[in-house]
């Protein structure tokens, strides 16, 4: 049983004015792959380090299984951690690195050898056991760091940005390997910290998006993407990021419109009118993902007359499978669109663009909450 429960967890550093982590509440289920994601300084690593016992908890309760572990040293919490810089002991061989924790826990030598070799086999480290960290590549060091953690049979596996030091190609490979490992270790709960939302979306069963020490939203990757609770989550999840247009809600005889000054005036779909009618003459943020912006001559797209926006392409990034285009309106406002690779776009081309407003989100400009949910 490796359920992790965080109840009203708070963390304040001695010289800090505010709480680094404030009222953090989360139930992490047994064998879940929980991801903490957020920008630098949002408190995600602090929470992970509190679970590991590397930081004291200012207030609140931390339970692993049914046990309150607030005052238990990290070594006795049945956890293992993979650090961002791997934290392999440089003067020890891979074998010594992997057996160190078992040795510290007084395990029998023969048993240690068996466990280390089993873990090495699982992670394809057999040939590297007598090498030192300086004689290995980043990917190999990463696997050793994971191996050093799994030999302990932890109930909870903590990972603090473990892929951030790897190159892009290796990162994709290791992402898959960690996901496979999660499937293989069917009694272990994974808690993974990253600032990379692609890692979060591809690996996590649930993602907690954090900002300023507070969980903004915690849900499955699909829900976070399709139904972001606020502007921060909407902007953080998804690559390229969602575009936000500062609009005013206008009521006219034939419906409700969103108007961006000197830029566009577009009609809100009827099924959404009810949700935004109370914002009449007020500012809201219109959030549109880049793939929901199309040239108005795109086939199969129903263009509502008047719901178009004229903009000039200023940067074109052809990626093969898709094309990212940075547009600029006459008023100088910039936004990104994701086009089919077959769409012909050149720098300085002018386009009439249309939005799929049924897939857009509208956020209160003060609270930044999603008012279309």
């Amino acid at each position: 049983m490796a359920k992790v429960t965080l109840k009203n967890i708070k963390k304040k550093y001695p010289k800090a004015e505010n709480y680094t982590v404030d009222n953090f509440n989360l139930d992490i289920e047994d064998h879940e792959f929980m991801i903490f994601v957020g920008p630098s300084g949002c408190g995600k690593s602090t929470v992970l380090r509190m679970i590991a016992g590397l930081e004291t908890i200012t207030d609140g309760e931390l339970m692993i299984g049914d046990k309150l572990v607030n005052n238990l040293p990290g070594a006795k919490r049945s956890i293992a951690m993979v650090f961002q810089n791997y934290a392999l002991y440089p003067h020890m061989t891979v074998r010594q690195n992997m057996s160190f924790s078992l040795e510290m826990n007084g395990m029998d030598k023969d048993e240690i050898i068996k466990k280390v070799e089993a873990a090495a086999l699982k992670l394809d480290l057999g040939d590297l056991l007598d090498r030192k960290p300086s004689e290995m590549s980043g990917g190999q060091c990463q696997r050793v760091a994971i191996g050093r953690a799994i030999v302990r049979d932890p109930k909870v596996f903590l990972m603090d940005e473990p892929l951030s030091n790897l190159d892009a190609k290796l990162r994709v490979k290791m992402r898959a390997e960690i996901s496979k490992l999660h499937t293989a270790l069917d009694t272990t709960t994974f808690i993974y910290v990253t600032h990379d939302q692609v890692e979060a979306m591809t690996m996590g069963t649930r993602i907690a998006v954090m900002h300023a020490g507070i969980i903004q939203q915690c849900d499955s990757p699909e829900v976070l993407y399709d139904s972001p609770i606020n502007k921060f989550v909407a902007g953080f999840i998804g690559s390229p990021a969602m575009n936000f247009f500062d609009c005013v809600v206008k009521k006219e005889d034939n419906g409700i419109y969103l108007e961006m000054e000197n830029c566009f005036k577009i009609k809100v779909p009827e099924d959404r009118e009810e949700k935004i009618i109370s914002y009449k003459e007020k500012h809201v943020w219109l959030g549109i993902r880049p793939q929901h912006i199309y040239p108005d001559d795109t086939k199969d797209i129903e263009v509502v007359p008047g719901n178009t926006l004229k903009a000039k392409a200023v940067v074109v990034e052809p990626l093969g499978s898709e094309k990212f285009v940075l547009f600029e309106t006459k008023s100088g406002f910039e936004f990104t669109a994701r086009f089919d690779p077959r769409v012909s776009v050149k720098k300085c081309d002018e386009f009439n663009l249309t939005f799929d407003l049924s897939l857009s989100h509208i956020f209160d400009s003060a609270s930044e909450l999603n008012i279309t949910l």
Partner: protein
Amino acid sequence: MLTRTQKVIIYLTLSIAAFLMVFPFLWSIISSFKFAHEIMAIPPTFWPENFTLTNYYQVFNSQGSQFGNWYKNSLICSSLVTASVCFFSALAGYSLAKFEYPHKEKIFYTILSTMMVPMQMLIIPWYIMFTHLKLNDTLIGIMLPGLISAFGIFLLRQAFERIPNSLVEAARLDGASEFTIFRRIMFPLIKPSVAALGIITFVGNWDAFLWPMIITDSSHMKTLPVGLQAFAGQFGVEFHLIMAAANLVVIPSIIIFIVFQKHIIGSIASSGVKG
């Protein structure tokens, strides 16, 4: 890119400087194999006319000489002080680099400030204190002031600072005690700096003259540098014996330097600290 002429000038200058440094040492080695009258002869000879080992025999057996005893005293004092300095500097340096506690910085700067007090100023208080403690003319008396070194603490603190905290944290999660972390993880990683500190301390203590001379009275308690004075008596200086003894004195320092020179140069260069 240096031109050929520039290179020649640099090498020539360095060669002359090296020769000027090495020549006195070479002279003392060669002179130690000469008879007393040849050393004083004018014009001087470079190569011994009659090669002899008598000087070395006399260093150990001449009247008043306790060369073996002095060698032993120097070896004991230098080794124990070196071991103590390395051990306590590592402990203090580790604590100052990797633990958080109140007034840590103030403690560190206080330790550093002791380096600014010249030894000559401390000698009289030490002497009075040691007389009260009845440590005059003892090996403990010779060693005690040097057992802990502010420079050593500074050097090793810098070395520990360079080691990522995540190694300590990983070891804590692995279940290692704080002393095990120090002994098994951290200390091995600063070995080059410890080696450098060891050499500096050993050589410094091996050559120490003023304090051992003041604190020792009896001939058998003297250390080598102090003992060498015995060869410069009231009625003249026995250069042939001094040359032989000086060569014997310098052997351990040279051995230690040759063995650990890579460490000392590397460590001092990387820590940006002069020895």
